[in-house]
């Protein structure tokens, strides 16, 4: 056993939903301190990949393996994967009426604390923790009392995802098109949040369509996914090339 295994290792992964095979023989290795960008045309399997790693029950793994820090996670529930340090920032964060952001964030935070037998925070203690984090994504405390994503603008929803990532301090964060639909100011705020959050002990996967985000968050590698597998891997330069040439030339 490797004493310092990669954070994430995808081996010959094949998955399907409703008997449609989406990921076909996917391989990917991500080490600590790395930021990987995954690009590719619509329908290539990028979002499926993110949900499968997080353990979404709708997808069936029909072959291969997913290793998190050297151990398979295929038999783990989504909440266990979350506790271990896997975070997914959703492409379309869902609205949850009647539940305040503050309660949600505290419950998420305390669930993880409990999992590691660490003390849970009461609302007052948590408030002082959360107010510091709010500044990192430039959100006002008034946002805490609002219901989760309800009536949020597109930018607020995405910032909320980044805030949750910061609160849970996840080791592996998958950001599914967190940059889409953002204006340039919001993009800067989110990029700043990601860069402050990133350390040499963590890894981030950025799923994106645009080179724009990568101007602010520098990727270690850029992958192109097509038809359920990675067809090309390169440096940050690859993204610039794709911006100009599109995906057709790779075929």
């Amino acid at each position, binding site marked *: 056993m490797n004493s310092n295994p990669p954070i994430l290792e995808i081996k010959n992964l094949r*998955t399907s939903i409703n008997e449609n095979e989406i990921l076909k023989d996917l391989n990917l290795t991500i080490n600590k301190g790395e930021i990987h960008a995954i690009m590719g045309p619509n329908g290539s399997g990028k979002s499926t990949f993110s949900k*499968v790693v*997080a*353990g*979404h*029950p*709708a*997808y*069936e*793994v029909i072959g291969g393996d997913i290793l998190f820090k050297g151990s398979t996670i*295929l*038999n*783990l*529930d*989504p*909440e266990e994967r*979350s*506790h271990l340090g896997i*975070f*997914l920032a*959703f492409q379309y*964060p*869902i609205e*949850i*009426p*009647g*539940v*305040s952001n503050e*309660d*949600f964030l505290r*419950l*998420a935070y305390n*669930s*993880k604390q409990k*999992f590691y037998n660490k003390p849970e925070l009461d609302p007052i203690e948590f408030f002082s923790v959360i107010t510091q984090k709010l500044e990192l994504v430039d959100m006002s405390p008034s946002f805490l009392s609002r*219901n989760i994503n309800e009536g949020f603008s597109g930018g607020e929803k995405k910032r909320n995802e980044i805030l*949750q990532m910061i609160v*849970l301090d996840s080791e592996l964060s998958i950001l599914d098109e967190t940059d889409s639909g953002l204006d340039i100011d919001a993009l800067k705020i989110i990029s700043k949040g990601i860069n402050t959050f990133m350390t040499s002990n963590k890894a981030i996967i950025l799923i994106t369509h645009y080179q724009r985000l990568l101007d602010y968050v520098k990727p270690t590698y850029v992958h192109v996914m097509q038809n359920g597998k990675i067809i090309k891997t390169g440096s940050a330069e690859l993204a610039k090339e794709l911006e100009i040439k599109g995906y057709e030339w790779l075929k």
Partner: protein
Amino acid sequence: MVNQSKKTLDTNITKLVNQPYKYGFSTSIEKDIIEKGLNENVIHIISQKKNEPEFLLQFRLKAYKKWKEMKCPEWAQLKFSEINYQDIIYYSAPKIKKKLDSLDEVDPELLATFEKLGISLTEQKRLTNVAVDAVFDSVSIATTFKDELAEYGVIFSSLSEAVQEYPELIEKYLGTVVPIGDNYFAALNSAVFTDGSFCYIPKDVTCPLELSTYFRINDQNSGQFERTLIIADENSQVSYLEGCTAPQYDSNQLHAAVVELVALKDANIKYSTVQNWYAGNEFGQGGIYNFVTKRGLCAGLNAKISWTQVETGSSITWKYPSCILVGNNTQGEFYSVALTNNYQQADTGSKMVHIGKNSRSRIVSKGISAGQSKNTYRGFVNVNNKAIGARNYSQCDSLLIGNGSNANTFPFISVQNSTTKLEHEASTSKIGEEQIFYFLQRGISLEKGIELMISGFCREVFTELPLEFAAEADRLLSLKLEGSVG
């Protein structure tokens, strides 16, 4: 495998859905029952057994006559097989040898039954701030804190006792808010009601305790027809709570109750219900048919009546707690959470009738439907031409869980004067797989996630419940719902 984690999720769900109904046991006890069936003779027998004054027998017979001419209402969004009224026992009482002077003489089996339901009637263990009237099938078993309440002039007893001790109050008020021929089930109840609670709060008195009645249907073949009458005299206040459970049988039992509230000038009545009758099994077999007429009369200036209900049980619920706002500046409120799961059907809502000037009403209804159930809100706001300056606010929210359930809203509004201010809001939302996954991905368990969503959805209503019961209601709902997502 991801597949496996889906299976775990599904197993959890199944386990939780099949939470056994905690109150499904039955008590075997020697009973005084009469023959099945309904006719004038049965009414005479009931009246005789209860040693009733002549006016009450006439009240019953008149109601029976009306009922025979009426038809079971069909406008509700409910489907059920025809009820055979000749196949029901109209009087079933635990055998009691002599008149009870103290609880020591109550059959220990009965005390144990209520103990098991979490309602302690014995001196040492009873709730310190709640007076309880316990009704078992057709009769009231015991009423706690009677003497303590009497010191304040508050009368709290079973209706049967009140008929004997305060016949003039009964004759004056019974049937004044819900007339005997009001509707099919009210007429039936007026003919054959057996017991219930009676409560009178004298002028200028704030009732020092929460009053509560606990209804238990035990017998498989008997119907429960109880009647509650609460009178709050001028400038008095009372908070009242009813709870209901029944054993688990695979046949349906009929429950047709009537509740009448009278609030005189400056009086305030708060009436809360936590209804947890047996709801039938996951295939829709068994459960209580709950046809209830509840109405409050705000008779005098500034009177206020507030209904709060948490309806989780019964295979069928047909219930529209209403307020008749006769006095000027009167207030009526209705807060409701109705939850249906499996094959349960609920058609519930409220009626607000504005007659007095500046009368105000507020309806907040939350319907939660899971499984294959049907949940309907039906409301009627009627503003009379005399009700100058009347106001109504209605809000109906529906929450769907899963893909098989059904929610309907039928708000009916009739306004006959132009000074009325009226607001109506409605929303429908859904707890689906994606919401659940959002919680799970953030490390929050399925149970916690649902609990949080449900309690958030119901918050406005739960805050209206007496403190002791708000937490219980919260727990009851999550217990009933957990696992219905998938």
